[in-house]
C-alpha cells in the first residue's frame, strides 16, 4: 500500500501528469497541452460507409478536413451544435441519430487527446470549455464523451476560461464568438454566476445560414453548399465600411461563374453585431453603476468568429451609439483563447481536486 502511494505521488508530482485545456467547439476543437502541444481539428467525424470505403481510406474513422473532403463515402457527423453534443439537445436535433453523434463526439475527444501526444503512462487531466448556459444534460453528455479518453475531467464556462487565460478576472466583459454560440461573460473578481453570463445562438452558423439565404435570393442560379458558404465566409468575412471585392466562382449550370459577394458577406456578418451589443447592454446595465464605465472599457473579443474583419470596430461603434462608450480588445489567438485558458485552469487546479473527481 505504501509502495502504491509512493508511485502515485511520483506520477502526480513528476512528469506523469499531462494537463489539457480543450475547447470543444461546434466548428473546431482545439487543445492546449502542458507539454507545449497545441492542435486544432475541424469538428467533423466520418466513418466509412462500407468495406470498400474502409479499404479506400485505410482507416475506421476520419476527422476534420479529411472527413469533410471524403464525406461522400462516409457516415458523416458534425457531432456538436450550439456548443454542445447534439444528442443532448432537446427536440428533433437531439433525437436524430443521437447514438451516432455521441459516438462521434467521443471519438473526436479521443482524437484531440491523441493529438496532444500524451506519454503512454501519463495521467491526463482535462478542463473542457462549455457554453456559458449549457444545461446539466448537455454537460453530462460532454462528461460521458470525455470519460473514456482522460483520467479526470472538469467543465468550465468557455468565456470564463478565456478571461482566466488572459488574467482578466475583474471588470471585464468577454465575448466568445464560436460557430454554435456567442457567449458573453461579465468578470467581476469572483466566479461568474448565471446572471453574469449570456449565451446567444446568433454565432458563426447563424451567419452561414443568413449568408446562404442572401445568396439564394441574390443569385438563385448559383449552386453552392453550406460548406462552401462557410469557407468563403472564413476567407472574406468582414464588416468594414470599405471592403475589397470578394469575388468567388460558383457553378451555374456546371460552369464556374464569378460573383462578387462582398456586400452580402458584410450584411450577413453584420447581423451578429446588434444581438451582441444587446447582450452587453444587459450585462452592463445590471452592474454596479459606479463601475459600468470600467466594464465598457474592457470588452474582450475572442473565439473564431472574432476574426471577422472590423468586428471590434463595429461593436465599439454600436456601443458608442447605444451605451455612450466602449472599447473592444481582440485576443491575440482567437483559435486557442479558450483552450489556453482551460489549460491554465487545469494547471492551477490542485491535484487533490483532480483525484477526487477521478
Amino acid at each position, binding site marked *: 500500500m505504501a509502495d502504491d502511494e509512493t508511485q502515485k505521488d511520483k506520477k502526480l508530482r513528476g512528469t506523469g501528469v499531462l494537463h489539457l485545456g480543450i475547447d470543444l467547439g461546434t466548428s473546431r476543437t482545439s487543445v492546449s497541452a502542458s507539454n507545449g502541444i497545441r492542435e486544432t481539428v475541424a469538428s467533423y467525424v466520418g466513418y466509412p460507409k462500407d468495406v470498400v470505403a474502409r479499404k479506400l481510406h485505410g482507416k475506421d474513422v476520419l476527422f476534420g478536413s479529411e472527413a469533410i473532403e471524403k464525406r461522400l463515402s462516409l457516415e458523416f457527423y458534425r457531432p456538436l451544435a450550439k456548443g454542445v453534443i447534439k444528442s443532448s439537445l432537446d427536440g428533433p436535433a437531439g433525437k436524430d441519430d443521437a447514438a451516432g453523434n455521441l459516438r462521434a463526439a467521443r471519438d473526436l475527444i479521443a482524437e484531440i487527446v491523441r493529438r496532444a501526444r500524451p506519454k503512454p503512462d501519463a495521467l491526463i487531466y482535462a478542463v473542457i470549455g462549455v457554453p456559458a448556459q449549457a444545461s*446539466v444534460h448537455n*454537460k*453530462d453528455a460532454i462528461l460521458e464523451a470525455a470519460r473514456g479518453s482522460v483520467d479526470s475531467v472538469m467543465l468550465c464556462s468557455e468565456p470564463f476560461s478565456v478571461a*482566466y487565460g488572459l488574467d482578466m478576472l475583474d471588470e471585464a466583459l468577454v465575448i466568445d464568438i464560436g460557430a454554435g454560440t456567442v457567449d458573453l461573460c461579465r468578470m467581476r473578481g*469572483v*466566479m461568474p454566476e448565471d446572471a453574469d453570463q449570456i449565451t446567444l445562438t446568433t454565432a458563426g452558423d447563424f451567419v452561414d445560414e443568413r449568408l446562404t439565404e442572401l445568396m439564394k435570393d441574390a443569385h438563385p442560379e448559383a449552386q453552392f453548399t453550406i460548406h462552401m458558404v462557410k469557407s468563403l465566409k472564413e476567407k472574406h468575412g468582414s464588416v468594414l465600411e470599405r471592403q475589397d471585392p470578394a469575388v468567388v466562382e460558383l457553378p451555374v449550370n456546371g460552369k464556374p461563374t464569378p460573383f462578387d459577394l462582398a456586400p452580402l458577406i458584410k450584411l450577413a456578418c453584420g447581423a451578429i453585431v446588434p444581438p451582441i451589443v444587446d447582450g452587453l447592454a444587459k450585462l452592463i446595465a445590471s452592474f454596479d453603476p459606479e463601475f459600468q464605465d470600467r466594464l465598457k472599457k474592457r470588452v474582450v473579443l475572442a473565439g473564431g468568429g472574432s476574426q471577422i474583419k472590423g468586428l471590434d470596430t463595429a461593436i465599439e461603434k454600436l456601443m458608442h451609439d447605444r451605451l455612450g462608450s466602449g472599447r473592444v480588445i481582440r485576443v491575440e489567438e482567437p483559435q486557442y483563447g479558450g483552450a489556453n485558458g482551460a489549460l491554465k*485552469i487545469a494547471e492551477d*487546479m490542485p491535484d487533490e481536486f483532480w483525484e477526487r*473527481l477521478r
Partner: protein
Amino acid sequence: MFEPIAGHVALRGGGLFGPNELRRLLVAEFDRARRHGFPLACLVVGIDRLGQLHDLYGRESKLEIHRSVMRILQADRRVSDFMAVLDDDRLLVVVPHAPLEGVRSLVRRLQRGARRLRFEGESRALEITLSAGLCQGRGDDLRGLDVFVATTAEAQQRASALGGDRVVEQKPPVPEPAPSLAPAPGDESLAELALRLDASGAGPSIVAALLDLLSERHAGARDTTPAAPTAPQAPAMVGGERDDALEMLERRVSKMADLLARVERSLAAQSERSAVPGVAAPAARARADTLGALREELMGRIFDANVALRREVEKQRGAEGAAG
C-alpha cells in the same frame, strides 16, 4: 565661417556641400570621431593668387580654374571624405579615419594635379598652385568644431602668406585641462544617488549609466570652456557654437530625464522587493495574496460546481431509473 557666401552657388554644381549641409556633416563627423576615438583631419585648400587671376582674366576664368581644382579634389578623395566651399576661394576637405601621413600624401597628390593644370590666359599659360592648411586631431582635440576649422584656415593663410604652393600643418587647439573629478555643485545628489544605488544592489546598468552621465557632465564642462589661445581669431561662442552647446545640453537633459525614469522604476521595484531577505514587501505581498487567494477561490468554485454537476446528473439518472 559657415555663413552662405554669394557666388558659392555657382561652384556647388560640382557636388560640393553648401554651408548648412557642411555644418550638419561636420557636427556629425566630429561627434563620431570623438566617440570612437579615430583621427580626423581638416584640410583647407586655397588656390594661390586666385583673386589676381580673377582681376586679370575675369570671373569665368576664375570659375573655370576653381572647377578644375575641385575635379582634382573629387577624383583624389575617398568616398568617406567630404569637401565644401569654405569661403570665397578656399575649399574645406574633411578626412576622417586617416593617418597623418595619408593626409599629407593626399595634399601632395592635389598639388601635383593642380600643377599639371594648364590655362591659357591671353598671351601666356597660367600655372596653378595650391596652398593648404592641415590640422589633424583625435579624441578631445576634436572638441570645439569651429575653433578646429578656424585653426586649419589660419594654417592655410600662413601657407599662402609664405609664398603659396605649400602645406602648413597646425597642431589642433589644446583643450583646457579637465576640471576636478569631484562632483560639481548640483552633481552631488546624482553622485550620492549612484553610491546609494550601488550599495543597495540596484542594477549595475543604472549605476553605470549614472557614472557615465556624471563623467559626461564633467566632459561637457571642458567643452564649454573658452577657446584655446592657438585660435586667437575665433570668437568664444559664435552662433554655430552656441547651437552646438544648446544641442548638447538638450541631449543631456533628455538623457537625465530618461535616467531619472529608470531610477524611479528601479526604486519602485526595490520597494516591491524584500528589504529583508525572505520577507515580501507589504504592497507586493498584499497584491500577490489577493490574486493568489482569488485564484484559489476560483479553483475551489470550479471544483464545487463540477461536484454539484455530478450529483445532479446522478440524481437525474436515479429519477429516470425510478420512472422507468
